[in-house]
């Protein structure tokens, strides 16, 4: 007995509605990324705890300090103690923002890039899905925007989002101090701007690497090789041999740190004679290079002339 109607019927929906291809690709990418992370439940829980453990601790410190400040009579001496022990966190300095958002979360950006970013285009290439995408009302540009937004979302999730939340919590407990409030609002704005290169550059780099491979694993290996070689090997050897700081420009991480610290107004430990504008220029050039790679690799038909 036939239960379902198996005939073909015409669709009577709105055929003129705008196509939001980039957001559809982004939504699917996020779902797939979450599924990839949660493929093995226990490692996933461990990874999430490791990524957000410090954040939970910092949040706890801010909230406990706020509670103690409001109950000084009950806990005499406790306010001074917590202020003394957790000065960096409670004063929410640009240095703290930098060290948390960049240094502490560096490893998790790498993990996000390897787990979520590497397969983004590589797996589509392997399954010939580019032909499926681009034979629909999806342009290469919209496809790439969707894919870049996906990896940018995951990088933001372990960097800028928790940092901004910490600043917001600190703002919410500092409302009684107008001077501190203004400073924190300024820091919030600087944090968001400083996060731009930290999110955008790795997102473009891993997506470009993904477009150059036909398997997520190969894309991850390619990306890690490029990052390790530029960041730790080639630049240091050349810098040592020629005794010139200019070779630090080969380090993508160094350039990101320079720009971040300038935006945050930090006086940091970067011993270099390389001007920040040169680092910014290198980052822009790197993004342009990645964009060219992406546009060359994301085509419906590969022409081998």
């Amino acid at each position: 007995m036939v239960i379902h109607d198996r005939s073909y019927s015409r669709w009577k929906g709105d055929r003129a509605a705008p196509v939001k291809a980039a957001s559809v690709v982004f939504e699917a990418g996020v779902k797939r990324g979450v599924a990839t992370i949660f493929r093995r439940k226990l490692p996933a829980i461990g990874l999430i705890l490791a990524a957000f453990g410090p954040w939970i601790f910092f949040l706890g410190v801010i909230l406990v300090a706020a509670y103690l400040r409001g109950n000084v009579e009950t806990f005499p001496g406790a306010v001074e103690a917590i202020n003394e022990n957790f000065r960096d966190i409670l004063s929410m300095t640009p240095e703290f923002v930098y060290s948390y958002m960049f240094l502490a979360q560096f490893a998790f950006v790498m993990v996000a890039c390897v787990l979520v970013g590497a397969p983004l285009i590589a797996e589509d290439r392997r399954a010939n899905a580019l032909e499926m995408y681009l034979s629909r009302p999806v342009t290469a540009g919209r496809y790439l925007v969707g894919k870049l937004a996906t990896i940018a979302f995951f990088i933001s999730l372990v960097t800028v989002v928790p940092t901004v939340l910490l600043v917001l919590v600190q703002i919410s407990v500092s409302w009684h101090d107008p001077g501190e409030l203004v400073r924190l609002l300024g820091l919030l704005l600087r944090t968001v701007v400083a996060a731009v290169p930290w999110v955008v550059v790795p997102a473009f780099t891993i997506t470009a690497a993904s477009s150059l491979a036909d398997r997520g694993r190969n894309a991850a290996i390619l990306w890690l090789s490029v990052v390790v070689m530029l960041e730790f090997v080639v630049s240091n050897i050349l810098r040592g041999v020629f005794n010139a700081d200019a070779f630090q420009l080969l380090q993508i991480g160094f350039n990101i740190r320079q720009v971040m610290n300038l935006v945050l107004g930090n006086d940091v430990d970067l011993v270099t004679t390389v001007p920040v504008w040169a680092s910014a220029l290198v980052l822009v050039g790197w993004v342009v290079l990645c964009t060219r790679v992406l546009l060359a690799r994301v085509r419906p038909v590969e022409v081998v002339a």
Partner: protein
Amino acid sequence: MTAAAPILELHGLTVRYGARTALDDVSLAVPGGAIGLLGPNGAGKSTLIKTLLGLLPAAAGRGQVLGYPLGQDGAALRRRVGYMPERDAFFPGLSGFQATWYAGRLCGMPDADARRRAHEVLLFAGLEEARYRDVATYSTGMKQRVKLAQALVHDPDLLFLDEPTNGLDPKGRLEMLDLVRTIAHDKGLHVVLSSHLLRDVEDTCDRVVVVQGGKVVRHEEIKALARSHGDAASVRVGGDVEAFRAACAARGLPVLEQKDRELQVKLPGDGQTRPLFEAAVAAGVVLRSVRPVRVTLEDALLDVLGRAV
């Protein structure tokens, strides 16, 4: 657009892969319905489809598909057409249902509509419980079906099917052709079916476009193509066979086959056998038997392709 307006119109279309010319000065006007794109492997059928979809740029020429000029607003055109690629192509990590729903969403369908249509077209394509399995685990036949469902989910006006029966067993092939016939003849969609298999086109299409070496060598109704090549006659000859062959050739009657004293001779367009008897008289031979042989599309096509080479 009126019913009589051509759905495809090309003028001097040329497509090149680097130095190689894949389509050479193709001009064509197709009125709609079920159109077969026929030709040997490497003839340029897939290139033509990809150019019509706006996936490949034209080196020269112009044209329109469903009223959209080639090379302009490809995204708007692709919203109104469905495409089933020749090779294995699927969205990785998705089940048949998810892939079809996703294809609908990419075409601008609202979420709820895309879900409902995905179920409908998957049932139509014959994927029932299997629609919840990962496409990567599908058999070749199931992959062809899910590709068809993905091409249909947004209910296109024009459907491009590139070798839809590739890799299918005989039963699967018949079922796929049945689905294509239903879409083309009962549901009012225009279908362009590319195939190197004559039977696939003969079974499903009203018109045929024959492509050879990047050129359109014939375009007409299938019935007219077979008819235009006339019929043939199987003739058993008593006497000098070579003299009879020469007499036939002199009267423009090509000999298609010869087995000993039995010759298959193509008759003129009107199917008259009189020239055969005239040739026999001229050669001084006796015709012991004359039997009509129906010219199939295959014979007609081989003749067209033979002349194009």
